[in-house]
């Protein structure tokens, strides 16, 4: 995958840029030595690295604003970075851009139980928010698997999900307000502890904008009281079809579990080898269904779900009788990724969503692709909302395997779209899926999105090269063609 060609004039001005930026932040906050800048040259998509022009680690919103304003005035690009755990390459630096790290924004600013909100700086981790309120019996619901390390600011950029978003929504459904800085250094406050925006929902469109519209410098989220009870079912199926059917049947019965995860046979066995969670090794599909809420409700639902999965053809059912057992059910799923990492030198974690009922069809097609590309694949899904995480196993040190794995991944995502789904359910487009955007969107769709970008960042200085395959100039996008036929466009270079 390619990033935009670096602007030579910027590269030539490197020293001047570095001295200018040093004026806006404390000593030591500008990192410009080749050796240690490398620590910032990659994120969770670690197969790719790119040395930034310089790294800047501000400590206050004013410093962020000053840096961004200066960069706008001097035509310097910016790549924002949270915890650098993006799996789609959202924080991969640009050689002619400033890597703006928000790691020093790590304080929780306000906890308000009465209004059920937490206000935190963007570098606070997702789990850090829950940890700040758990002693009082509260938690922050969206729980991406990387929650121990991923930042809440990054969660907003990616609109992160997690196991529990089936019942509790994604980040966008749990964010109440942000403070953000636009490329021209303006500090905007959107939302707060009150609900709804009262005007155009800029907060809504900022969430999931992958660092292209602005830099988040403060976040207010909704916290929830921990449910009174949490119990889980561990259900094995002889065929994936039956597993998929069970998922549909549960939802069709009017039950929204807190989480519904599926693992296929390769994933089950990798996890069993690693943590010995007691999974049925011969099962073609394993479903972990979590139900939470008031105790009486959970008891009723457990019974209902139990009956439903039996009817769908479950070959084994276990119901957690204790908190310990519930955690044990989850142990294998939670360590699925590292478990797979043990059986293969490397793996690509893909992310796509399909309608739930297309699950069996998808797995069948994936099996054929596995043959075609000659690479193993293990599957872990958020079955409840059709969000897949195929893990493509390969060896980065073996010639050409990374490339084949990426081709396999792209094929999977194209299939997701063909089956009525989308390219990415949680991880974002980043650089990883940028060149597949045309599978899902027409030229007009993409241009309209880019026009939105022009409203925030007309000079395309924030995170260019991510999400959109072709960068159109704003002036050109703004031009109206009144006739039905299209005006001829000058050749836009692709990168």
């Amino acid at each position: 995958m390619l990033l935009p060609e670096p602007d030579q004039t910027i590269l030539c001005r490197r020293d001047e840029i570095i001295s200018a930026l040093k004026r806006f932040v404390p000593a030591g906050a500008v990192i410009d030595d080749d050796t240690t800048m490398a620590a910032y040259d990659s994120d969770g998509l670690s197969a790719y690295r790119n040395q930034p022009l310089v790294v800047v680690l501000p400590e206050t919103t004013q410093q962020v604003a000053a840096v961004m304003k200066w960069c706008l005035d001097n035509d310097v690009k910016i790549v924002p970075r949270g915890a650098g755990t993006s799996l789609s390459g959202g924080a991969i630096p640009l050689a002619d851009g400033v890597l703006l790290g928000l790691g020093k924004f790590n304080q929780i600013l306000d906890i308000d139980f009465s209004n059920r909100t937490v206000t935190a700086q963007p570098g606070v981790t997702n789990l850090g928010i829950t940890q700040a309120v758990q002693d009082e019996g509260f938690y922050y619901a969206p729980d991406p698997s990387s929650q121990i390390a991923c930042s809440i600011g990054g969660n907003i950029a990616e609109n992160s999900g997690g196991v529990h978003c089936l019942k509790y929504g994604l980040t966008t459904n749990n964010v109440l307000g942000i403070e953000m800085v636009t490329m021209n250094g303006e500090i905007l406050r959107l939302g707060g502890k009150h609900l709804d925006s009262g005007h155009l929902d800029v907060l809504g469109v900022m969430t999931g904008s992958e660092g292209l519209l602005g830099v988040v410098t403060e976040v207010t989220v909704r916290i929830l009281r921990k449910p009174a009870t949490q119990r889980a079912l561990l259900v094995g199926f002889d065929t994936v079809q039956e597993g998929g059917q069970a998922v549909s049947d549960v939802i069709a019965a009017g039950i929204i579990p807190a989480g519904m995860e599926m693992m296929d046979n390769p994933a089950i066995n990798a996890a069993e080898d690693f943590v010995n969670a007691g999974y049925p090794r011969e099962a073609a599909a394993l479903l972990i269904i979590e139900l939470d809420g008031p105790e009486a409700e959970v008891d009723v639902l457990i019974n209902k779900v139990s009956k439903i999965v039996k009817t769908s053809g479950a070959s084994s059912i276990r119901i957690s009788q204790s908190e310990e057992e519930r955690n044990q059910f989850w142990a294998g799923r939670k360590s699925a990724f590292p478990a797979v990492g043990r059986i293969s030198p490397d793996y690509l974690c893909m992310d796509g969503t399909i309608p739930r009922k297309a699950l069996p069809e998808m797995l069948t097609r994936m099996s054929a692709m596995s043959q075609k590309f000659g690479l193993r694949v293990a599957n872990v899904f958020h079955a409840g909302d059709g969000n897949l995480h195929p893990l493509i196993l390969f060896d980065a040190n073996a010639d050409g395997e990374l490339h084949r794995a990426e081709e396999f991944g792209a094929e999977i995502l194209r299939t997701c779209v063909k089956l009525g789904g989308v390219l990415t359910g949680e991880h974002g487009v980043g650089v990883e899926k940028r060149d597949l955007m045309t599978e899902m969107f027409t030229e007009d769709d993409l241009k309209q999105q880019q026009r939105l970008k022009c409203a925030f960042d007309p000079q395309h200085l924030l995170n260019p090269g991510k999400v959109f395959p072709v960068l159109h100039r704003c002036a050109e996008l703004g031009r109206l063609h009144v006739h039905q036929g299209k005006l001829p466009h000058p050749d836009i270079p692709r990168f």
Partner: protein
Amino acid sequence: MTVWQPKTGEQVTNIVLSALAERRKLSVSGHETKAGLGHPVDAKESLSLTNLSGIVDYQPEELVLVVKAGTPLDEIEKTLSEKNQMLAFEPPHLERFYGTEGTGTIGGLVATNLSGPRRVSAGAARDFLLGFAAVSGRGDVFKSGSRVMKNVTGYDLSKLMCGSFGTLAVMTEITLKVLPCPETSSSLSLLCDTIDSAQLALANAFCSDTEPSGGAISRANEGWQAVIRLEGVDVSVRDRMTKLKSTLQSARTSKVLDKQASEAFWENWRDISMISDDAEQVYRLSVTPSDAPKIASSLLKAYDLELGFDWMGGLIWIGGKGAGLGQKVRQTIKDFNGHATLMRGTEGHRRDVGVFQPQAAPLAALARRIKNAFDPEDILNSGKMGTIGRGA
């Protein structure tokens, strides 16, 4: 006044394109049930979506409903209830409130982002809009979102469309997430001495693990009535009600509303029953719940008001009259953070006070640029959200 009534998306596109070519402004509407909401539109022609109606695809087991933008809300609600499903954000029926007929279209509902009492726990209309197809003010057909919930591909334009009052694009097709209906509902009504103690009772209820799905405060003869709704499976609701009652022991008197009474209360509350038909000005304030008592008291000191709270205190409905009421509301909101919308009033009120809360200058400028990104010639619902970019 020319009224365009397209039957297909293509016709919508042609209407917009021709209007664009001649710089004719359009007033975009559904059944105009909420015509009283927003500033008057500066347009000589009307683009009505009433004939762009019908269910495109409904898959209950996928929790997805795809409809044409002009589909009436009651048709949708009937279709969903047949499968025991609902629009969880509890869209209000505002016929009585606005003195119009019919429940309006789904397009209008999305455009105004109006949600009912369950918004406090389930989310607003914007949290249920999965995707849409539309024609922009540039005459471009475009889509965003999808039919699946887990989708972060590209910008979330659905959020922008919701609450944009038709000023950015004309929606032609809308995809919504639907949810199963709860088996039953029951509500606890507590008589409290003050708004403060009533709001505190609501806060305590929501901080408990009884999972309320509605928190309202209404005026009572001697004090204030805090009403808390519990929904779900029958045995669960009964259990939680017992727990809730013991958690909120300190209130003076309490009574439990059974399913019928509970549903009746919340339906009325959803439809703004606490404000009488002849209230001259009606404001809808969105505030930090714990600020609600202070805000209300400050307003009540100065004016005689009809008053009701929803969303655990985070929503305040005010009905009243008098010169300066609007300014007082605006000023109070400014002091506390939040926003106020003039939901009903005369043209004079709209001019004086504006319909929407004025935004900070940089935000207003951004809103103007966003408008330009979709409708550079300002042909769609021009002026509906005030002069976007110049405050109210």
